[in-house]
């Protein structure tokens, strides 16, 4: 069963104008037999692995900077995961936090598109030598 079923979480970047409703309808219109469930952050798409892969490629093609995706272990609506059953599971806070960071990641993808190179990492400041700290402390005294 694991091999067959794939559930995909699509998350829309907070600075995007794409709406969950719009995304869900787009996927639905692709007509690949993939079930779609709209969520507050985007949507869940569920179907055979091959069909979901096609949907993913198409969504990435249309919204490269707006929509991000990962697999989800639980099928859509699974009571083991459902918020209504027990309250939020711990991974919810994780998703919330990652969602907030997506706009920054979009900027990174734009930089990739412009063919930029990363700046060399800044040298770590290192600790203040103890002798120096001692001098400062003594000066204040």
């Amino acid at each position: 069963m694991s091999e067959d079923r794939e559930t995909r979480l699509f998350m829309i970047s907070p600075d995007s104008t794409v709406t969950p409703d719009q995304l869900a309808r787009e996927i639905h219109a692709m007509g690949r037999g993939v079930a779609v469930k709209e969520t507050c952050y985007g949507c869940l798409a569920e179907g055979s692995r091959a069909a979901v892969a096609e949907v993913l490629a198409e969504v990435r093609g249309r919204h490269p900077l707006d929509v991000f995706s990962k697999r989800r272990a639980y099928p859509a609506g699974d009571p083991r995961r459902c918020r209504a059953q027990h309250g939020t599971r711990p991974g919810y806070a994780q998703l919330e936090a990652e969602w907030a960071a997506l706009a920054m990641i979009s900027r990174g993808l734009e930089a990739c598109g412009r063919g930029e190179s990363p700046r060399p990492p800044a040298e770590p400041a290192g600790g203040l030598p103890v002798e120096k700290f001692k001098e400062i402390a003594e000066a204040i005294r």
Partner: protein
Amino acid sequence: MKVFIDPPNSLILFDLVERFGHEPLGAMASIQERIDNIELDMPPMNVTLDDVVGGLRYAGVEVPSGIRGRLALWGPMIDAAEAAVIMTDAPFSFGCVGCERSSEMVKYLIQRRGIPCLRVGYPETEEEAEDAVLRIKGFLEGLG
């Protein structure tokens, strides 16, 4: 290539690894493998006593059960990985990665395997985010 991501449940890392043409190895696959096993009824994740005992491969019995259970899930994926991307100091580390000691051990296991590994700090600014994504892209493209 199979690329292990840490935090293993990160949406951002999963997306970037896949986007740049590799197979991300993360939490979701190993959890799905368990929850889809209809012969087990140990909700929510079907992590079994055997899993936790199996975690002894990675950490001794004096190590708390929650750590061994986590290592039982991630350990085999690290063993199977050909490369890894680690995001350090990520403020999002809930759920699967909620235990700091487990996360430290995961990083160590990656290093011990000696596979190519990129460590990027969690970006605080847009500039840092650009650099992080550019470095991840460069690393993944370099894997061939």
